[in-house]
C-alpha cells in the first residue's frame, strides 16, 4: 500500500520569552492510504501539535512531511491552504462552527469556496452531496438550525459532514469524541470507521481506548517522541472489539499509560 502521509524527522519548537520548548523531537511515521492511525500519549506530550504540524496548520521547525507526493514544507501559504481545503478534512474536540451560519450552511461553505478551483462541481452537486452526507449521519432534521440549537453529538456529526464535503484524502481528528458521551462517541466512531472503509485515511488523536481500538495502528507519543507503535490490524466486526480493547490496554499499560 502506498503511503498518503510520510513524516520524517519532524521537529517543532515553540519559542516563548526566549525559552525554547522542543515539543516534537525527530518524529517519523507514516499513514498508508486508507489506513486509520490513532495517536495516544500523556497530556502535553505533543499530540495536538503533531496533528497541526503535519496538516500544515502550524509551521514545522525541521523535518519533512510528504502528502501524496507533495512536500508540504515547500508549499506557499496559499497553496497549503488550498491543500487543506480540498484534500484534507478536519475534526476538532470542540465542535467549532461559524455561529452566524446554520448547520447546513456551515457544511457547504468549504465546498462553495473550493468550487472555483476544483473545476466542475456545481453548487447543485454540492448540495446533493451535502444532503446525502447529512442523511447518512442522521442530521438532516437539524439542517436549518443554528449551531446552538443542536446537541453535542449532532454538532460533531455536522463537523464530520463538513470535513467530508470536499472528498478529502485524509481526515485529521483531534479528540473527536473528547467532549461527547458514550452513545454519541460510539456513533461518531461508527462514521469515522465507515469513511475509512470507503478509502479515506484517518489520523486521529484520542485518550479513549475504545476509540483507539477501532483503528489499524496506534502510535504512542511521549514527550515529543514516538515511544512505540502497535499494529492492531483492520477492525472488522463488533465481536472483535472487546479483544482489541484488552490487547491495547495491556500494551498501553506497558507504555506506562
Amino acid at each position, binding site marked *: 500500500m502506498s503511503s498518503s502521509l510520510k513524516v520524517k524527522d519532524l521537529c517543532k519548537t515553540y519559542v516563548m520569552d526566549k525559552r525554547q520548548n522542543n515539543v516534537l523531537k525527530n518524529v517519523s511515521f507514516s499513514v498508508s492510504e486508507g489506513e486509520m492511525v490513532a495517536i495516544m500519549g500523556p497530556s502535553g506530550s505533543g499530540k495536538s501539535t503533531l496533528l497541526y504540524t503535519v496538516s500544515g496548520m502550524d509551521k514545522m521547525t525541521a523535518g519533512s512531511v510528504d502528502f501524496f507526493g507533495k512536500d508540504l514544507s515547500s508549499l506557499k501559504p*496559499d497553496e497549503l491552504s488550498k*491543500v*487543506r*481545503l480540498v484534500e484534507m478534512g478536519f475534526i476538532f474536540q*470542540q465542535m467549532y462552527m461559524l*455561529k*452566524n451560519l446554520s448547520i447546513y450552511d456551515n457544511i457547504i461553505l468549504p465546498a*462553495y*469556496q473550493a468550487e472555483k478551483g476544483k473545476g466542475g462541481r456545481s453548487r447543485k452537486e454540492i448540495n446533493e452531496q451535502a444532503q446525502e452526507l447529512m442523511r447518512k449521519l442522521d442530521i438532516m432534521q437539524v439542517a436549518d438550525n443554528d449551531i446552538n440549537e443542536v446537541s453535542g453529538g449532532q454538532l460533531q456529526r455536522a463537523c464530520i459532514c463538513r470535513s467530508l464535503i470536499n472528498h478529502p484524502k485524509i481526515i485529521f481528528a483531534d479528540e473527536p469524541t473528547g467532549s461527547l458521551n458514550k452513545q454519541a462517541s460510539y456513533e461518531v466512531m461508527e462514521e469515522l470507521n465507515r469513511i475509512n472503509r470507503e478509502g479515506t485515511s484517518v489520523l486521529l488523536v484520542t485518550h479513549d481506548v475504545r476509540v483507539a481500538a477501532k483503528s489499524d495502528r496506534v502510535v504512542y507519543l511521549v514527550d515529543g517522541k514516538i515511544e512505540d507503535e502497535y499494529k492492531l490490524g483492520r477492525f472488522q466486526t463488533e465481536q472483535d472489539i472487546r479483544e482489541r480493547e484488552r490487547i491495547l490496554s495491556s500494551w498501553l499499560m506497558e507504555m506506562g499509560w
Partner: protein
Amino acid sequence: MFIQILKKDLKRKKGMNLILFLLLIISSIFLAGGVNNLLLTMNAIDYFFKEANVSDFYIKTKGQGENEIRIEKWMEEMEAEGLIENVEKYPYLMIEKEDNSFDSPLYLCKIRKEQNLIFDTDNQPVDLKPGEIAIPVSQAEQKGIEPGDEIRFRAGEKEISLQVKSIVKDVLFGSPFVGFDAQYISEADFAMVENALSRKDGGITGYGISSSDISELERRFYNEGLPVFTTISQKELRTCYVMDMLFAVFLMIISICLLVISFVILRFSITFTLHEEFKEIGVMKAIGINSLAIRGIYLCKYFVLSVAGALSGAFFSIPFSDFMMGSIEKNVYMPKAQGNLWLCLACGGIIVLLVMLFCYICTGKIKRLMVIEAIKSGSNGERYGKSSPISLYKSGKLPALLFLAANDILSSKKKYIPLFISFIIGIIMIILPLNAVNTLKSDSVITLFGIAKSDVYITSHKEEAWIEDGDMNKMLADLEHMEEIYAREGIRVKLYSEVLYFPYVSSETNKDKSSIMATQAKNFDTENYRYLDGEPPKLSNELAMTALSAEELNVKMGDTVWLQFAEEKIPYILTATFESFNNLGYSIRLSETAETDLKYSAGFYDIQGNFQEGTDVEAAISKMREITPDYEIKNTRERIAVSLGGIIERLDEIKALIVFVVIVINSLVTILLCRTFLERDKGEIALLKSIGFSNGFLQAWQSIRIGMIQLISVFIGILFSYLLNDGMIQYTFGIMGTSQVELNIVPMEVYVGYPLLVLAGVLAAAYIAASGVKRFSVQKMNDME
C-alpha cells in the same frame, strides 16, 4: 489580589486593552477638539472684531488738503454734539500701478495703534523696521506674495525696495469684499516716501471713528455730502466676512459630527469589551469572588484606562484643533487652542465620567449573571436569536466571500451600528459643505456682492465723475454713448448701472433710526431680479425690500415706508420682497423711475451689460476689449475672481480639508473597529484558516464587510443629505442673510466621486487592519465560544 488580577488583565489582554485605549484617545480628541472648535468658531468674527477694536465708522477721503479740512471740521462738530467719541487718522501714500511691482496701486500707511489693529500670522502685534513691508492676507493670497518677497516702487525720484516681513490679519482690509487695500510700512519709511513724493495730493486719508449712535452719525454724514471716496460701518464690514463666517459654520458642523462620532465609539467600545469579559466574570463568580468585588475590579480597570486615554486624547486634541482651525484662522484672529488647555482637560474629564457611567451600567448585569450561563454560552449570557436571515444554500451564484460578509452584517446589525453612524455622518459631512462650496464657486455667487448676474462687467473710470457731478442724466447719457460705440461695431449690448444709497428708513410701527442700503438700477428693469413675493416695483413710489428688512420694519405688502436721503422724508409703498446676501440680508430695491439724486449716492457697482439674445458672450467680450482698450471688461467668472481672488483657492482648500478630515476620521474609526472585530472573530478566523481558507480570503472577508457597510452608509448618507440639503445649506446661507440660494450641485463629484474616494480610503484602511488575520494560528480557536 485585586491589583494582581488587574495587572494580569492589562498584560494578558494587551490587544483588546490597547484598542480600547486608542478608542478612548480618539473619542476624547474628537470631543475636546469638537467642543473647542465649536466655541472658537461660534464667536470667531466677534472675537476678531473685538480684539482688533474695529472702528464704528471708517471714512476714506478723496485726496488731502481741502477735502481733509472739510471733513475734519465736520467731525469736530459731531464730536461737539457727542456723536463722535474718538477719531484716529490714517494718512495713506498712493503709488500708481505703473510705478510699482505690486501690479496694482499701493496704498502705504503706518501701523494703526488704537483702532482696526493688525496682527501677524501668530496673532502678535506687527512691528516693522525700515526696509520692511506688511501685506494683508487677502492681497497676499490674490497676488501670491510670501514673506521674504520684494516689492519695488518709485516715489518721485527715489527707487525704493521693501521686503515683505509679514502677512497680516487686517480687519479693515482683510476681506476682499471691502474693496480697497492698504500696505504697512515703518514710520521712518513712511516719512521718507512722503518726502520723496512731489505730488502731495497723491495721498488719501482714512479716519477710524468710534461713535455712540452710529446710525444717526451715518445719516448726518450722508446728508452732509462730504467729498469722500468710501465709507464703511462696522456693520457693513461684518458683512464682508461672510466667507469666514461660512468657514466657521463648516467647522461647526464638522465639530458637531465629531462629537456624535466620539460618543458612539465610546459606548461601543465599553459595551463590547465588557461583553468580552463575561466569560471570565462567570469564572470568577464560580470560584466564589462576590459580585461587588468583581464589579470593583472592572470599574477600576476602566478608570485607569479612561484616565490615561482621556488625558492623552486631550493633549492630542490641541494640534488637531489647531489643524482644523488653520483655514479660518488665516484671515481671522482667533485665540489659539493652547489657551484652552482647561477646556481640553474638562472634556477629558467628561470622557472619564462617561466611561465610568457606561461601565457602571454594564457591570450592573454582573449581579444578575448566572455562573452557568456565563461559562456555558460564553459571551453575554444571551442565546443568539435566529441568527441567519439569509442562507448560503439559497444564495444562488453569490461567491462565498460576499455571502459571508453580508451574512455577518445581517446577523449582527447592532454590532455595526457605530460604523454605520460614523460613516453616514462622514458622508453627510462631505456632501453638505461641498454643495455649499460648489454653490459659492458657481456664477450665481455674484449676487453675494449684491450684483445681479449679467453677461459683462465694465469699469470705465467714469463713475467717480458721475458722483462728483451728481447728475443722473449725464450718467445715462454716458451709458447710451457707450452702447452706441459698441453698436457701431456690431455688438448689441444693453448697459446699466446700479447706484447705492444709504437712506434712513422708517415705517409706521418702527420709527427707530437705521439706515439700510438701497440700490437703484438705471436702465435696467426691476423685473430682471428674483422676488420672493409680490410685484416688482415699477412706479416711482414703489419699492421692494428683503424679507429680513420687512420683518425688522414690521411692514407688509402695500404698507408705507419712509426713506430719507436728505432732509425730506419720502413715502414709498412696499410691493415685493426678495432675498440677498448683501448687507447681511438688509437692503432695499428702488424702481427705475424713483426720483433719486446722485449727490447722495454712496457709490456704484460696475457698469453691467447684457447682450442681445443669441450673442456669443465670450467673442463679444473680446471684441469689446478691442473697441475700448482702456476699460476693464470682464465676464462673470472674471468678475467673481476679482472680488474673491484667493478665496476661490481657499474654498478648494476647505473642500480638500473636509474630504481629508472625513477620510482620516473614517479610516481611523475603521482601523480601530476592524481590529476589534478581528479580536471578536479570532476563533472563527482560526477555524476557517485551519480548514483551508487562505489568508487572502480571510482578509478580504473582514474588509469587504466594512466596505459593504460603507457602501450602504453612502446610500443612506446621500439620502439624508438630499433631505437635509435645503435645510442645512439654506440655514448656512441664512446666517449670511439669504435663504433662497440656488444650489449648485455637481452630482458626479459630490454624490459619486468623493463618496468613492472615501470608500476607497475606508477599504484600504480596513484591508490594512484586517492583515492581522495572518497572525492568527489554530491555537486561537480555543478562544471561540
